[in-house]
């Protein structure tokens, strides 16, 4: 047991080392969401009448946070596909390490990267007027929630990465699925404008429940959601927890099985 923990920590450490050896990756991974903050804040912020105290940026920040951590899936998928392609996964599989070490190490490593990204984004948000009003404990919980969501999404990335085996394919596949998912939600605009059927989809969308949960935890009224009055939109924290639990409960065992059998 202790051995398994040390195994996955070695894999996680490898990723942190990568961050140090090629800081550009982390820098770009952070610049992109920071740029989104600025673009949405100043391009849409003026046009969208938020109706909440402190303006659009209060609603925007939880949206961008969730979008960013949802993309952890991409980091995991692309990273693992690259390792597959280079034969590194084969080498790991030929070592006397626990069967889950590589995938757990990867998901934890990607989550640690999120810590850095979220801090930078939070600071950029603060500079452009984001003021969470719920007090330190809830704010902290909000960020913890975000990390947990990113972690559970990461497990989908494991399966994608081990299945497609090619960095570029993984990249395209992930962007084609995660982008629509983050936009068919309450993250950036009210769902009111959508056709009723899409409103329901948007409100059941885990991205929406997460955004709604974070708005609650950061102390902003979620005026962009709950237009269709579905259950998840009214119980976003609980629903998000259920989603996260389901993601890990379903995808983690499948991922480990896939890893054990995967063959280049």
């Amino acid at each position, binding site marked *: 047991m202790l051995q398994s923990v040390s195994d996955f920590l070695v894999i996680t450490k490898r990723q942190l080392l990568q961050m140090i050896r090629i800081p550009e990756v982390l820098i770009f991974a952070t610049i992109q969401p920071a740029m989104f903050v600025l673009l949405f804040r100043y391009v849409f912020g003026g046009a969208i009448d938020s109706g909440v105290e402190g303006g659009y940026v209060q609603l925007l920040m939880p949206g961008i946070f969730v979008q960013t951590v949802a993309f952890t899936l991409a980091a995991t998928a692309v990273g693992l596909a690259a390792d597959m392609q280079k034969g590194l996964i*084969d080498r790991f*599989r030929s070592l006397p390490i626990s069967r889950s070490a590589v995938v757990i190490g990867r998901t934890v490593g990607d989550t640690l990267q999120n810590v850095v990204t979220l801090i930078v984004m939070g600071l950029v948000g603060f500079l452009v007027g984001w003021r969470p009003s719920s007090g330190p404990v809830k704010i902290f919980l909000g960020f913890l929630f975000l990390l947990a969501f990113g972690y559970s999404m990461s497990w989908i990335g494991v399966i994608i990465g081990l299945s497609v085996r090619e960095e570029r394919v993984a990249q395209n596949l992930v962007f084609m699925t995660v982008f629509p998912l983050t936009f068919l939600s309450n993250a950036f605009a009210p769902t009111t404008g959508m056709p009723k059927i899409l409103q329901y989809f948007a409100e059941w969308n885990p991205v929406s429940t997460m955004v709604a949960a974070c708005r609650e935890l950061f102390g902003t009224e979620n005026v962009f959601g709950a237009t269709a009055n579905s259950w998840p939109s009214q119980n976003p924290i609980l629903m998000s927890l259920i989603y996260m639990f389901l993601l890990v409960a379903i995808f983690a065992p499948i991922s480990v099985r896939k890893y054990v059998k995967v*063959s*280049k």
Partner: protein
Amino acid sequence: MKSIIAHELLKTYDKGAVKALDGLSLEVEEGTVLGLLGPNGSGKTTTVRVLATLLTPDSGSAIVAGIDVLKHPDEVRKVIGLSGQYAALDETLTGWDNLTMFGRLYHLNSSSAKKRAEELLEKFSLTDAARRPIKTYSGGMRRRLDLAASLIVKPKVLFLDEPTTGLDPRGRMEMWGVIDELVKGGVTLLLTTQYLEEADHLADSIAVIDSGKVIARGTADELKNQVGGERLEITVEENQITEATRLVEQVSGAKPSVDPGIRKISAPVSNGSASLIQVLRLLDEAKIHPLDIGLKRPSLDDVFISLTGHVAEVVVEPEVGGKNAAKRK
């Protein structure tokens, strides 16, 4: 004592349509080197992957260092080293980072992992490059580091899958030197190659593999003898072919084969140099001056052709063949 025993390994893909391994059996004596020689897609890599616990065969059994590969793969992983066709390293990390990481994954403690990394870098002449990211390494350096990574715990059995494929001649010579050193250290080595001269140079015995099974085995000399002894080859002017052929037949006793295109006559001879002198004298008497004349021992290429009916394809590109191979970069 046998260090590797593979028995009747069968591995099929696409519901049996493609047989990667078709009842392959082989044995390697402890402390010796077996060269697994075969063309692209013949099943070399699949064999290594099964023995190194990466792939489960449909049927058959395998024992490595006395441990059943299918029943106790975790135990096998503790005593083997594997270096695949492509340097399987983290390219963004340095050589040092890679070796210490693998050391930790072999459950060395932090200081032993560092010490071992240091030793291996030294041994493989990579100390100067230790702090540079792998992506700045040459192909030969990557292969050496990859090999170093498979030696961290001094494996009892080492698998090298085409260790020199894709290397330039200098890189290949360096790699041969390194492997020679290892073998002197007493490791049991299974090495796959599509280079016939490589098997000849490095291996104690050779198993020729084609279409997923071993079709011949023995030492390089035994395999050469299996094809036949020496051949006399002469090249003459076009108008002298008939006469020269008659003379060669007289010495050889067998009907020579004639390639009119390159005006070459060749025939098996039993007593090498004596036959050569005899033919030369006869040719001289007949006033035929050969453009070229020589004795040729069969190369492993000849062995291959005579065993498989086709030429061993030596390509620099990675194997394309098996279903898995096709997915490689």
